[in-house]
Structure formats: C-alpha cells, structure tokens
C-alpha cells in the first residue's frame, strides 16, 4: 500500500487523518498516486492538481524520501521506498503568511 500525507485542510475536506493508504499498481508515479487518491476521495478533485491539465496547484509541493519531487515529471517513477510503502508521499502546502 502507498501512503500519502495530506495537509490539514485536505484532511478536513476528505474526512481523513494525516495519512491515507492507497492501492496503486506499478509503475508508481505522481499521476498514478493522485489518480488513486482522487478515486478514493473524489472531493479532492481539483484541490491538488488542475482537473484538466493535471498541473500541480502552485502553492503545493510533493516531497518524498527527503527530496522535492514537485517538478518531476508526473509519469516519472517515484522512489522505490514510496512504491514499497516504506516512505510516504508528502503533499505539503506552502508556508505563507504569519
């Protein structure tokens, strides 16, 4: 199972805790994980990426295994530890204000 960490506002929207677990077939990519996430939690459609272009919303970042994957290709394979469920894919809201 893939683990994804959601920012607080999306946890309240989806009614989840910080982490959700998803079944994602290989290859495990940003697109595959987000497709599975939006399939399991349709209320998240449009809140992480544009529904048509699939482009990441500008104030969100994707981190995994202590690296920033935000600007990686959406069809690039994510790290093996994410695919193996050992490490989560972190969806992070930019720190803004305060």
């Amino acid at each position, binding site marked *: 199972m893939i683990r994804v960490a959601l920012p607080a*506002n*999306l946890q*309240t*929207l989806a009614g989840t805790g910080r982490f959700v677990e998803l079944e994602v077939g290989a290859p495990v990519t940003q697109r595959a994980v987000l497709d599975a996430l939006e399939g399991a939690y349709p209320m998240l*459609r*449009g*809140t992480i990426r544009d529904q048509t272009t699939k482009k990441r919303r500008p*104030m*969100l970042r994707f981190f995994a295994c202590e690296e920033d994957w935000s600007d990686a290709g959406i069809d690039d394979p994510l790290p093996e530890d994410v695919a193996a469920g050992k490490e989560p894919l972190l969806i992070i*809201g930019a720190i803004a204000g305060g």
Partner: protein
Amino acid sequence: MSKVRLLVGTHKGAFILNSDGTRKKWEVTGPHFTGWDVYHVKASPVDPDRLYASQSRGWFGQVVQRSDDGGKTWTAAGNEFKYEGAINNHKWYDNSDHPYAFLRVWHLEPSLTDADTVLAGVEDAALFKSTDAGASWQELDGLRHHPTAPTWAPGAGGLCLHTIIQDPTNANRIVTAISSAGAFRTDDGGTTWKAINKGLRSNYIPDEDAEVGHCVHHIAMHPSRPNVLYMQKHWDVLRSNDGGDQWTEVSGNLPTDFGFVIDVHAHEPETIYVVPIKSDSDHFVPDGKLRVYRSKTGGDDWEALTKGLPQENCYVNVLRDSMSVDNLDPCGIYFGTTAGEVYGSADGGDSWTTIVRDLPAVLSVEAQTLS
C-alpha cells in the same frame, strides 16, 4: 411557530445560527469546512433544506458543498469551472492585458423554481450555471464575451462577479454586478447582456460616466417590484426604477456614501438599509460608531439606527454579502462584521442585539424563514 436560520460564511469556515420566531435565543453550530474561506452559503427557495456553499482556499482552489438536510451534513459537489470557448483578456491593475482565469466562487444564487438549478458568480468575472445540483457547471459565456469585457479591470478584491438577482416575474431576466466593471442585465436567460450603468459617476476612471468601469459593490431588489433596484457603489448609493436602464443617486444625508451592503425590508419595498463606511482608504465605520442607516423613502432621507450597536471604539467593516432580511413580521435584519460579530434586529432595525461574537471575519450572511 416560524423559525429563522442564518447561514454565515467566514474566512475560516461556515456557521449556522438557528432561532425560533421570537429571534431572542440563537443556537450556533459550526464551524463547517474548518479553516477554509466560505464566501457564501445560500438555500434554495424551493427546498429550504437544500443549501449550497462556496468553500475555497488559495492553496487548494474551489470546492462547492451541497446539503440536503439544512446544513447538518454536506457533500462535495462539482468544482470544475471551465470557461467556454476561447479565453479572452481583461485588464490587470497596471492596464496590461491579463487572460481570464478561474479563481473562486463569490456568490451562489439558487433558482427560484428548481432546487437543482443554481447560478454561480465567479472570479475572474463570469457567470456559471448548474442544473444538476452542482454536480457540473456550464458558463453562460455571453457575459464574458460582452464587447466591453476586454476593458474590465479588477477592484481590490479581484475581478469578481458578486451579485446575481433573478427577476421573479421574468425567468429570462437576470441582473449581475462585477467589481469593477459595473452592472449588467440579460433579458434572454443569459445569452446576451447589456451594461446598465447610465447615471453612475465614478471619479476613479478617466471618463467618470463611462459605459463600464464602475465598482458596483452590491445591488438589492424587492421581489414585489423587480424593476426597482438599489445599488451601493464604491462611493454613492443609487436607485433605478426601470430595471437598471437609468440610475439616480439617493445618498442624501448619509454621513458617507461609501459602503458595501444594501438590502430591502421584506414587507416595505421603499425601506432600505446600508452601513456607511468611512472611505475607500479606511475600510471601517466612521467615528468609531457602528450605525445602520435606514431610509423609508427609497433613499435620500436616511436615519441612523444605533440602539444596541457599539457607539465607540468600533472599527469594523461590513462586506457586500453580509446583510440579509427574514420574512417575519416585524421584519428581521441581520448583518455580520469583519470582527466576527453577527447582529440582528427583530423590529425592522429599531433595535439590535449581538447574536454571536468573535467568529472569524464574516464574509456573508443569508437569512432563511422556515415554517
């Protein structure tokens, strides 16, 4: 006995306030959609338990919520707002061309005849319609393709379509207002639109009585007289007796004619309410006093309503969608402030009580009268 329900949108969620017809004690529930901007919540006049809410956040974009049980539970509806056809430009603050891009829903206006049909006014300025209870949205793109649209420029809050008024006697007539383009009317259900800004004068544009470019803050109508419209503009309070074809200033003896809200008494179509704000640079009430002003003559002659409202050290604003009336007799008037108070009057404005205080900044208030 009748009940009143207030739907309150704030910068950090929505709240629902319930009272019986005496309007003395209020139960407050919420926050719903914690941490999100809730620009507007409004109920269907056909099915009072059908509510629509606009939930947004800069990080995460737009969500539309729907409730079928008066706000006890909510379901995320569709949130894809795609402009129809070619994307045109509007003007940016520096007068450069800027492509239209969807940002958020400012106002939701449920149909007068069908609980599953709802209009949405959005930023960048456009009008969308759903006929499936918010599951999908289609732009009524005639407005965004108005010949003047490439000249529209945003106000401080953005290029937003914030006011939608449906004519109860003519399903094809809708009046909208856009900051800072002006007022527009369709008489064919949204296919074509006419700028209705004659009589408006705005000294912050090069031609002060231009066809468009006016920062209309809000428009109100009494359902018994759909041709009479009342407007709070950036500066100036105005009225029209012909559906917006011609406007006349009725600011009269107001201490300042800048403001955001304007509303009409439920049973007296010539009784209107505004909350004067000091100026466009000081977005708070003048003299540290929170005063609602009432005109019983459709404008020009105004009286201050102060009983029960703070009259010293008050520096709040009341935003454009933050006033509403119920249909009881006497008519109830409600408004919310940027400091998080919601005030109510159960006697047409003669006296006021604090219904709730210390909420997040209030963005909108809608009153429902329930049997």
